[in-house]
């Protein structure tokens, strides 16, 4: 047994897992406050990363200018998308809502490939040193940055929902729309805000992943990987999203390890989360932290 490889993969799992956690949080945020399942979450990462890439490489802006512009763009993008496409869908059956976001995902994915080409493109170098030595392990600097920024985003989320007015309004809306409305919360604005925040944070994650692996349409696969994560954690739990992200991230790297050591099936890295997903759905469909909805006639 190769312990060095195992620890390396476990560290990778934790780092990728926190990124899954961040993307899953954005997904849960939208689901919780607007009851919409966003199949286009991965495209938010994609659009954010490409926008930032275009600003840095095509317009040659420095990072400290290009990155904030990307974020502002994504906020506007999220709000406009919610107003134009998702607002007419309120009250429609679940299949229509799912299909609209799938349609969006298809549209933006091909639009991005058209505009920027199908091949991966790398960001300009942000760090001087490629990798550093931690406890005898070789870790890429970009990975450390991704881990740090994920944790920062998670803490920011916590403060936003616990201590800001908008965050409280969003939690109230998620809890009970009618009561929130009667207390003077603008539900429309909350819906727009949740899409804006989700787009913004996803774009951050997209830029981080883009710096590590390069920007390509493979980024949108994060939007699919998010499903095992949120099902494991519970569809409406932010904590669940983080825990689920870590577990799935570690799980897929473990699957990779076992596959390379004994099984030799190949491709387990991609497929293992989906097997996990089916098993979870059969045993505990509401996930670890999700609320079980009880239906009454």
């Amino acid at each position, binding site marked *: 047994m190769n312990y060095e490889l195992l620890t390396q993969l476990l560290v990778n799992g934790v780092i990728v897992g926190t990124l899954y956690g961040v993307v899953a949080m954005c997904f849960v945020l939208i689901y919780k406050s607007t009851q919409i399942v966003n199949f286009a979450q991965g495209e938010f990462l994609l659009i954010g990363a490409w926008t930032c890439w275009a600003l840095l490489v095509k317009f040659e802006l420095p990072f400290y200018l290009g990155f904030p512009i990307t974020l502002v763009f994504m906020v506007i993008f999220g709000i406009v998308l919610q107003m134009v496409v998702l607002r007419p869908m309120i009250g429609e059956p679940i*299949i229509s809502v799912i299909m*609209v976001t799938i349609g969006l995902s*298809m549209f933006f994915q091909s639009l991005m490939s058209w505009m920027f080409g199908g091949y991966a493109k790398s960001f300009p170098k942000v760090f001087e040193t490629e990798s550093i030595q931690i406890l005898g392990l070789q870790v890429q600097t970009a990975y450390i940055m991704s881990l740090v920024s994920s944790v920062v985003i998670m803490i920011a989320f916590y403060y936003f929902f616990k201590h800001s007015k908008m965050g409280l309004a969003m939690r109230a809306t998620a809890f009970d729309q009618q009561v929130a409305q009667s207390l003077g919360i603008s539900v429309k604005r909350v819906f727009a805000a949740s899409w804006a925040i989700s787009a913004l944070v996803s774009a951050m994650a997209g830029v981080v992943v883009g710096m590590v692996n390069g920007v390509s349409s493979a980024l949108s696969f994060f939007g699919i990987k998010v499903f095992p994560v949120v099902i494991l954690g519970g569809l409406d739990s932010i904590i669940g999203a983080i825990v689920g992200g870590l577990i799935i991230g570690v799980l897929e790297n473990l699957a990779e390890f076992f596959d390379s050591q004994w099984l030799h099936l190949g491709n387990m890295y991609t*497929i293992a989360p989906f097997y996990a997903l*089916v098993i979870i*759905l*059969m045993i505990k*469909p509401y996930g670890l932290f999700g609320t079980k909805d009880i239906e009454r*006639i």
Partner: protein
Amino acid sequence: MASAHSRMKCGEFRTNYQQDTTIFPTPLARRVAVLSVIFLLVAPSFLNPYFLNLGIQIGYYGIAALGLNIVVGFTGQISLGHAAFFGFGAFASAWLNNTTGIPVFFCIPLAGTMTMALGLIVGIPAGRIKGLYLAIATLASQYILEDFFSRADWFTGGAYGAMANPFSIFGFEFNNDQRYFYVVLFYVVIMFLFGTNLLRSRDGRAFVAVRDHYLSAEIMGINLTKYRILSFGISSFYAGIGGALFGHYLGFVSAEGFTIMLSIQFLGMVIIGGLGSVMGSLMGTAFMVLLPELMEAGVGLVGHNAPGLTHALAYIKEMSIGLAIILFLIFEPDGLAHRWKMIKAYWKLYPFSY
């Protein structure tokens, strides 16, 4: 008025069960259906190969789309893994024919049955979960099956794909578009008649009851688990038949053709055609098959002025499909079948359309 019966009415004027369960609402509709089948029977002799090819595509995709409509439109379950079943049908038929030597004629229905068995297994979660959770479960099964196709060398030929022999009866090979058109037409007529009749039966009504209000349906003695899984099984049977026809038409089945993209296209066909409408499935399929062709023609027209467009044709096709799904859901959520009904009602009531 004797002629009143022969005309389409604008509302629901049915007064007894017999009227409610007719296949064709009016004699005129029946005559149109029979005439269009007769037209299609003679069509291969004068249509050019391009249109024949499109017709065949609409045929096999239409069969699979009807299957998806049974599970999504009639039973109210969501399936994001239809393309995997379609692919399984194609591989199953080719595999049966290549390994056991059973004639293709029998392989197609057998492949449908095999796919149905698979659908019944994959449908087991459908008995327990519904709505969004089911959508995600079927998404997982799509990826798992796709992975299976790429690694099961004995079944699919793995990365190399599988060869499929042409359809033949008593040594007469249906190896070109003109001949194969009849095979597809035969299956389309059979499968669509079966689909329409299914909805007139007890099982079909049970599906609709499960969709409309599953708790009430259960109270009225409908076994929810049984009917949810059954609808998955029937829909997979359709997908298997469609896939088998696809495989024997192309003569070669590759594991890369049955991605989530195709599943989305199937859902698009069903939604654009109209959820819960048998003929709508065919209309939606025709729309979905013709849309990329229209895009290609459109790009061809302006292509010499904007060479960038010609290179991006694949992306433009995909974008147009995504956009069509979004626009239909926002502006015409009941699909083409509903729009067609409205057009008929408009002419019936003209000029007093209020």
